[in-house]
């Protein structure tokens, strides 16, 4: 019996796996880049818009949060091009899907963070004549963002794991590369072991960073920044 491990064959294609990891990080990073500001925007609409704005914003957020990401991905990749008559490549479809999908989650993180700030902060700002935008920008968001950092990074990790779905529309992320190497070398076990290890290293490093940061924030006290 006994399986004969052979990593050498697989490691010859390591540059392909590396390219896959880079692509995974690219999709994750760009989705964050668009998703976070969009999330803030959605959160503000949901919190402070009048009802004709607030309700659609809430609907969009809930819709994106409750539908399977893979269904969203397929919709943007297969359905949207038919509707608008323009071809969308896997990369663009991925960015589009995960920017929107993560924005819904970030919107809720922002909303929670903003609502966690004591009403006294709003009142103090109001009392010196600040309007709502000034209060949000100068007083509320700087404090809220600090409280949100752990939840925020948690979501970013979650996002990176979810982006493995892009392999289903043939975007060459880490999982996709692993799969194609497995098919050409028949070294399925080794390839996926290495791919898993690569995911593990990146994501575990992130979680360690989060835990450090959380500890640091706890030490510095809720009320002190710097």
């Amino acid at each position, binding site marked *: 019996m006994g399986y004969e491990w052979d990593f050498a064959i697989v490691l010859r294609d390591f540059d392909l796996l590396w390219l896959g990891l880079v692509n995974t990080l690219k999709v994750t990073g760009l989705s964050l880049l668009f998703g976070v500001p969009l999330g803030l925007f959605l959160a503000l609409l949901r919190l402070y818009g009048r009802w004709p704005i607030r309700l659609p914003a809430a609907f969009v957020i809930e819709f994106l949060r409750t539908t399977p990401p893979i269904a969203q991905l397929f919709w943007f990749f297969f359905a949207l091009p038919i509707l608008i008559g323009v071809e969308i490549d896997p990369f663009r479809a991925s960015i589009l899907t995960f920017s929107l999908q993560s924005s819904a989650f970030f919107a809720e993180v922002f909303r929670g963070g903003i609502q966690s700030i*004591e009403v*006294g*902060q709003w*009142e*103090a*700002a*109001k*009392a*010196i*004549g*600040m*309007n709502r935008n*000034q209060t949000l920008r*100068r*007083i509320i968001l*700087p*404090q809220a963002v*600090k409280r949100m950092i752990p939840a925020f990074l948690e979501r970013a990790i979650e996002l990176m794991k979810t982006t493995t779905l892009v392999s289903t529309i043939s975007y060459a992320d880490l999982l996709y590369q692993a799969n194609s190497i497995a098919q050409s070398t028949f070294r399925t076990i080794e390839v996926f072991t290495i791919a898993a290890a690569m995911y593990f290293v990146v994501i575990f490093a992130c979680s360690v960073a989060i835990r450090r940061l959380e500890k640091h924030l706890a030490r510095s*006290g*809720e*009320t*002190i*920044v*710097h």
Partner: protein
Amino acid sequence: MSPVLRLEGLHKSFDNLEVLKGIDLEVARGEVVVLLGASGSGKSTMLRCINFMEMPTAGRIHFDGDLVGRERNGRVQYKEEELTRLRARVGMVFQQFNLFPHMTALQNVMEGPRTVLRCDARECQRRGETYLNKVGLGWKANDYPARLSGGQQQRVAIARALAMEPEIMLFDEATSALDPELVGEVLETMKGLAEEGKTMLIVTHELGFAYTVADRVLFLSEGRILEQGTPSEVLTYPKQQGTKNFLRGHGTFRLPEPQID
């Protein structure tokens, strides 16, 4: 000269609970008015209506001779921008200090001039230092609120309000959240402002302070002004039963003058 502040038939209800049942009041420039009353008598609500932290249900508020809002069919309508501009001219100090925890003492004081008045950097710095020094905390300029005692935090909050150079200062139980040994420094600061001629409207439970600092004392009961007059008239020779009961409650236990030097 018109009074800084004039309230006419001010009413405020929360749902079905009527908290203010018609308040009429004029505050002259430089006058120090202390509001007394049992909890629930409406004194904090009255203060909070004056700078529109709460919206009055009915009545008119005149500031510097001008009606705040626009009257239509007997009802006053308010625009948020107008209220925001008004609040910049009215200082308020809260029971819970409410300093901005992510800013240093100096940054807290400069925030209004900077963001609301859009003063240039030099003017912001000048105001920040001037008013922080005025409350005796220039040496704490670069400390964050969490590093300050309650009394120091409240003094920074006073400086923050003063930095807007407001025409009237409102104090909403500014010493109620403080440990007893820290009350004195805040009252001293307030007294200093009164002596400088700041117009002040003060809600407090410190009767001795009211007696010393007030030009006029109002006693509120069940949403109305029950009695008003000089500190001596209201606090020493009260006429109304409600005022007498209140003062009796406060005077149950009394210390003979402590011999300290």
